[in-house]
C-alpha cells in the first residue's frame, strides 16, 4: 500500500514541475516591460532600471527561473502592489473561507447526486430517471454565477429566508477564535451556537450554488456505473440467493459502482475550483478567488500568480488523494502496484 502511495506521489512531481514552469512563464508573458510594470506608472527610467536589477530581470531567463524556484522554496510568492502585504500571508488567511465553501458544496452535491443516481439506475425510464436526466442536462447548462443570483433573488429578496449575500458572517457577529479557520467547526469548538447558525446561514446559498453546478457529472456517473454493475453476474447471483434488495443494491452493487464515481471527482474538482471564483464574486465571499479577482482588476499580478499556483498545487494534491483513496477502496489497484 505504501509503495503504491509513494509511486503515485512520484507521478505528481512532473505535474508540479509543469505547473511551476507555466506560472513562471505567465509573468514573463506580461505585456510590455515587466520592470516598468512593477515599478509603477510614475517611475523614471532610472527607477525602472533599479527595479530591473532588483528583480533580476536583467539576468538570462534560466537564471530568473532559478531565482523564482528558490523564492518558492522559501515560501516567497512576492508582495501585492496594492496592499503591500506578502501574497502568501493573504492567501493563507483567505484559504479557509474558500475551502469551507468548496467542501460544503461538494458534500451537499454528493448527498443529493449519489442517491439520485442510484434511484435512477434501479428504476430505468421511471419518473426519477427522467428527473435525473433533466437535472444533469440543466446542471451543465446553467452558468454558475447565474444560479447564484437566482438563488439570491428568491431566498433573500423574495422570501427573506437567507441573509444578505455579503461575506462569511453577519456584521453583528464576531468571527470565532481561529483553530481550523472553518467557521462552522471553530464556532462549535468555541461553543458559540449562535455564531454556528449565523455562519451556516451565510454558507447555505453559495454552497447550494456550487452543489447544483457539480451535481450533473456525479449523478450521471453514478447512474451509468450503477446500471453497469446491476447487470453483472455477481449481482444476479446475489439476487438469486435471495438477499434483500437493499443489501444487493447497497452492499454489493453500490460499493463497486463507487469506483468510477470517485475517478470523476477529479474532474468535478477542476470545475469546482474554477466555479468557486465566480461564486465568491456573487456572494462577496472573502476567499482566495475574490482576492485574485480584485488583484486582476487592479493589474496586480503577483497575487494572481500566487493564486493560480496555489489552485494548481491543490488540484494536483486532490488528484493524488483521489488516486490513493481509489487504492484504499479497490484492492486490485493495490495488487497491481
Amino acid at each position: 500500500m505504501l509503495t503504491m502511495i509513494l509511486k503515485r506521489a512520484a507521478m505528481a512531481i512532473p505535474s508540479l514541475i509543469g505547473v511551476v514552469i507555466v506560472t513562471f512563464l505567465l509573468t514573463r508573458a506580461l505585456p510590455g516591460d515587466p520592470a516598468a510594470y512593477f515599478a509603477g506608472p510614475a517611475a523614471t527610467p532610472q527607477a525602472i532600471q533599479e527595479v530591473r536589477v532588483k528583480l533580476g530581470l536583467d539576468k538570462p531567463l534560466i537564471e530568473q527561473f532559478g531565482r523564482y524556484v528558490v523564492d518558492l522554496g522559501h515560501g516567497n510568492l512576492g508582495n501585492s502592489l496594492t496592499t503591500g502585504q506578502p501574497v502568501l500571508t493573504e492567501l493563507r488567511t483567505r484559504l479557509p473561507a474558500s475551502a469551507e465553501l468548496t467542501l460544503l458544496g461538494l458534500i451537499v452535491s454528493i448527498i443529493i447526486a449519489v442517491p439520485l443516481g442510484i434511484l435512477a439506475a434501479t428504476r430505468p425510464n421511471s419518473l426519477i430517471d427522467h428527473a435525473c436526466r433533466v437535472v444533469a442536462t440543466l446542471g451543465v447548462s446553467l452558468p454558475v454565477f447565474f444560479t447564484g443570483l437566482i438563488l439570491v433573488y428568491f431566498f433573500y429578496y423574495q422570501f427573506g429566508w437567507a441573509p444578505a449575500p455579503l461575506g462569511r458572517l453577519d456584521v453583528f457577529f464576531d468571527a470565532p477564535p481561529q483553530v481550523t479557520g472553518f467557521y462552522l467547526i471553530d464556532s462549535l469548538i468555541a461553543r458559540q451556537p449562535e455564531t454556528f447558525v449565523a455562519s451556516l446561514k451565510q454558507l447555505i446559498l453559495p454552497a447550494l450554488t456550487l452543489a447544483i453546478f457539480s451535481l450533473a457529472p456525479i449523478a450521471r456517473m453514478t447512474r451509468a456505473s450503477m446500471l453497469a454493475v446491476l447487470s453483472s453476474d455477481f449481482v444476479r447471483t446475489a439476487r438469486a440467493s435471495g438477499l434483500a434488495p437493499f443489501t444487493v443494491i447497497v452492499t454489493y452493487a453500490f460499493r463497486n459502482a463507487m469506483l468510477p464515481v470517485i475517478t470523476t471527482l477529479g474532474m468535478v474538482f477542476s470545475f469546482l475550483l474554477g466555479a468557486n471564483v465566480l461564486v465568491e464574486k456573487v456572494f462577496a465571499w472573502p476567499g482566495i478567488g475574490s482576492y485574485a479577482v480584485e488583484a486582476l482588476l487592479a493589474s496586480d499580478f503577483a497575487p494572481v500568480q500566487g493564486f493560480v499556483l496555489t489552485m494548481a498545487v491543490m488540484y494536483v494534491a486532490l488528484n493524488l488523494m483521489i488516486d490513493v483513496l481509489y487504492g484504499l477502496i479497490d484492492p486490485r489497484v493495490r495488487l497491481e502496484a
Partner: protein
Amino acid sequence: MTDIAATPRREGGLAALFRHSRYVLGENPVTGFAFALFVLIVLAAVLGPSIVPYNPLASDTAQALKPPSAHHWFGTDQLGRDVFSRVIVATRLDFFIAVASVALVFLMGGLAGVAAGFFGGWTDRIVGRIADTIMAFPLFVLAMGIVAALGNTVQNIVLATAIVNFPLYARIARAEANVRREAGFVEAARLSGNSDWRILAFQILPNVFPIMVVQMSLTMGYAILNAAGLSFIGLGVRPPTPEWGIMVAEGAAFMVSGEWWNAFFPGLALMVAVFCFNLLGDGLRDMVDPRRRT
C-alpha cells in the same frame, strides 16, 4: 473531365448524408429542436444590430430600471438602455468568441493530436506533456491567469479558452489517429509511395475530421460559459459593450433590490445558448457515431 466524374459521386454522398440526417432527426426530435434554436441564435448573431427596436448603447435616464413592458420586453437597465436590444446584439460577440476559440483549438489541438498519434515517439511525448501540464490546472483558473498575463482583451479570452480546451482535443485526435496508423488503407497508401505528410493530410485527417467536428459542438457550450465567466469577473469585454457575462455582472447589484430583469435575461440567453449547443452536440454525435448508422 474529372469534374464531371466527381460531381455525381459527391451528390450521392450529400444526398446520403441528408437522408441519414433526416432519419436521425426524425428519430430524435430534441435534436431537431436544438437545430432550430441554433438557427435562431445564428440569425440573431448575424442580423442582431439591424433588427433590434432600440440602440443598445443609447441611454435614457428617464426610463431607467423599468420592469418588462410592451415597450421594453426585457425592461431597461440602470441607464435606461433596452435590455432586450442589448441581449440580442450581444449574441454576435458571444457567438464569435465561442466559434473563434473552438476553431482555434480545433486547429491547435487537432493537428498536434493527429501528429502525436501518427508519428508517435518524441512528438507524442511532447504533445502529451503539454496536455498533462494544462490538465494539472483547474481550467477556469488557468484561463484567468492567461488573460491576466497576456492582457485584458477579447482576443486573449478566445486564446485562453482555446488553450484550456487543448488537452481534450489533442487526446481525442491522438487516439483516433493512433488506431488508424496501421490501418489497411494507410498501409496501402504508404506502399503506393505516399510520404508520411501526404498520408497524414489525405488519409488520416479526413477520417478524424467528423469526430473532431462533434467534439467542437460539444465544447461550444463550455467555451461560451468559460468566456462569459471571464467577462463576469471583469476580464476581456469592457462596458458598455453588450455581452451576456458582463450584463449579468452589471445586473447582479440590482438582484438584491428586486430589479431582477437586468441580470435575468442575459443569464437566460446564456443558458439557452449553452443548452442548445449541448443538445446539438449530443445529436451530432449520434449522427456521426457509426454504431447508429444503418
